[in-house]
């Protein structure tokens, strides 16, 4: 119960995001792959309306050897526009099946996740927050992450953009509940690549986003 309360409060805290633009333009497709200190995931989504995306998600929790596969919907709750910036608030939810792999004998069972993301960015600065609660068959799990970034130079459309970022994440149930991950983002056209490292747990971080 305490775990659930903590998880719920994390989800409701409301500020920022790790994914870059989880909702695209109408008719657009996006592939997002991410490997952080805990899991490796792939999300392919389609945007039928500029406030919604729906997609297929697979996530492998590497320590527990549990794999989630299911559908995920993301709603752009609000986008704030300014000439030099934009801010976004997203809510997302997913449902599917989780099952053990390798040495984990866990049978397939219903699983799901909910969360919020928010971000604010200019061409120079970036701030984001994400909170997620999931149940992949081994109990309710919660995480939250905040990120700040700066672009050392500002390029135009089609240039190679580089961002230096710092992410702090909290996973209350882990041996290392709070970790810091410095990362570098390369961004050009429809492709975004992030590489980082989490010293506290000696794990690399990598993600990519491709939009088409």
């Amino acid at each position, binding site marked *: 119960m305490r775990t659930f309360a903590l998880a719920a409060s994390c989800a409701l805290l409301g500020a920022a995001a790790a994914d870059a633009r989880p909702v*695209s*333009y109408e008719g657009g497709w996006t592939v997002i792959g991410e490997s952080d200190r805990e899991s490796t995931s792939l999300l392919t989504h389609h945007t039928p309306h500029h406030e919604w995306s729906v997609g297929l998600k697979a996530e492998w929790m590497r320590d527990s050897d549990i794999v989630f596969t299911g559908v995920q919907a993301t709603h*752009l709750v609000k986008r704030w526009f300014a000439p*030099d910036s934009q801010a976004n608030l997203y809510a997302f939810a997913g449902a599917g099946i989780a099952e053990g792999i390798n040495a984990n004998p866990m049978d397939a069972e219903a699983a799901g996740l909910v969360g919020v993301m928010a971000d604010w960015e200019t*061409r120079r600065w970036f701030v984001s927050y994400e909170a997620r609660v999931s149940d992949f068959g081994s109990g309710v799990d919660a995480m939250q992450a905040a990120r700040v970034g700066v672009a050392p130079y500002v390029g135009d459309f089609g240039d190679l953009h580089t961002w230096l970022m710092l992410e702090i994440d909290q996973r209350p149930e882990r041996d290392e509940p709070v970790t810091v991950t*410095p990362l570098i983002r390369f*961004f050009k056209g429809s492709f975004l690549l992030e590489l980082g490292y989490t010293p506290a747990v000696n794990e690399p971080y990598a993600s990519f986003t491709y939009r088409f």
Partner: protein
Amino acid sequence: MIRIFLTVCALAVAGFGAAHAQPANPDGHGEDHGDNHAHGGETLQPTLHEDITTALAEGGSLVVAEVNGMVCDFCATAMTRTFGRRDEIGAVHVDLDTKTLQLVIREGLSMDDATITDLVTRSGYQLASIRRGTGA
């Protein structure tokens, strides 16, 4: 591992930053793509992209739309893909410095303001203004 990561970061920033540096330009374009452009009512005149001038030379008409919230390549990609698949559009280009969407409407075809506004919205952004023809 940390040292390798920091070295990669430093090389990337130094290398790409240097590669991106542009010579000074008397009209100020290309010197600094920073956040200070077009603030406080100042309006930068967009430099027309080569694709735009080529399409204009073929007889199209120019539309320049100012768009709020365009801060990255994903924004620009959304706009170019959304407009690029329309038959009326001969060329499309996004200038992040001036926050403008440059369109060339093919000769003999038209696209009204309401359609442009709708397509910008469907791209996920907000139209601020539209200028047409020589005034664009």
